[in-house]
């Protein structure tokens, strides 16, 4: 039995420890994603209420090209993230780093496209206060964008830690857990895209 009173400051953490902690972190992340679902629930439910009941609601068609492009960008980033996780579990440090970097770049592309789109709206005078549709549009895409930004910060830190050599075959759960989050960001967009651009 490990004696905490005699603990030195750099104990060795065994693979069994990492497996156990991976399960704890995964559960924590799933709980967080559950709470994220509830966070977006409020927005979606409000949007559906506005769509189904508000008399003056006008769904203004946005430019579908931007939306479709961003959907493809995010789906691709999901693929690269999944491949990064796959590689990290096999201890492929260099390939893991490459895929994380690729995911990061795709996230950048997403935000740049979103920025161009926002710029178009602002030029046309479509500010959030313009009408209730643009209110929801900026609310939903804005908070989704913040999640993308948060994911990018996480990815940058992971890339750096991976480069430093923190991860190996036994210890790589931060990449996997960040992957869960990144896929969730994709998941939200999968619903936002038809709800805002197509329907």
């Amino acid at each position, binding site marked *: 039995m490990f004696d905490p009173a005699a603990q030195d400051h750099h104990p060795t953490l065994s*693979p069994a420890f990492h497996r156990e902690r991976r399960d704890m972190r995964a559960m924590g992340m799933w709980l967080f994603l559950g709470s994220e679902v509830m966070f977006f629930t409020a927005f979606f439910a409000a949007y559906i209420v506005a769509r189904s009941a508000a008399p003056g609601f006008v769904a203004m068609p946005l430019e579908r090209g931007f939306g479709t492009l961003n959907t493809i960008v995010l789906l691709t980033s999901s693929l690269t993230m999944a491949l990064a996780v796959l590689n990290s579990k096999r201890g492929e440090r260099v390939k893991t780093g490459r895929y994380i970097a690729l995911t990061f770049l795709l996230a950048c592309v997403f935000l740049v496209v979103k920025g161009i789109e926002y710029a178009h709206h602002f030029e046309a005078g479509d500010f959030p206060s313009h009408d209730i549709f643009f209110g929801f549009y900026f609310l939903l895409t804005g908070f989704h964008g913040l999640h993308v930004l948060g994911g990018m910060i996480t990815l940058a830190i992971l890339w750096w830690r991976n480069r430093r050599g923190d991860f190996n075959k036994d210890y790589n759960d931060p990449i996997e857990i960040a992957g869960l989050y990144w896929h969730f960001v994709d998941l939200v967009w999968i619903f936002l895209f038809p709800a805002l651009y197509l329907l």
Partner: protein
Amino acid sequence: MSSAATTAPSGVHDHGRSYKAEAVFYAEIFGLLISLTILTVTLSYVNVGWALDLTGRAPNIVAGMLVAAVKSSLVLWFFMHMNHEGRLNRFIFAFALCLFTLAVVAFSSDFVWLHTYVVEGARAAVGGM
């Protein structure tokens, strides 16, 4: 935090397939997702309810949301490895989705009622403004 330099096999997360098989599988899912994206964009240009003689956007909305549900299930199931996750983690997410449904159904049914009976009723009472 240092980690062990042991050579113990990391069996738990390895689903027993080769790297190549796994990567090809991801690519297949990705292909499916892209095809579904193309499908949903195409659907938005046509009147989905045409065959059933339905007008309005309701059939399109249902179709679009169904495709989105299929896409998100693919991501959830295969990219997020829900298929290998424990019962508890599945339950957490499923519970959140139930609450999502509850909120959406309860909120919108209240407002549809409000719109149908109160707002329209008031309009009829003042002579169809």
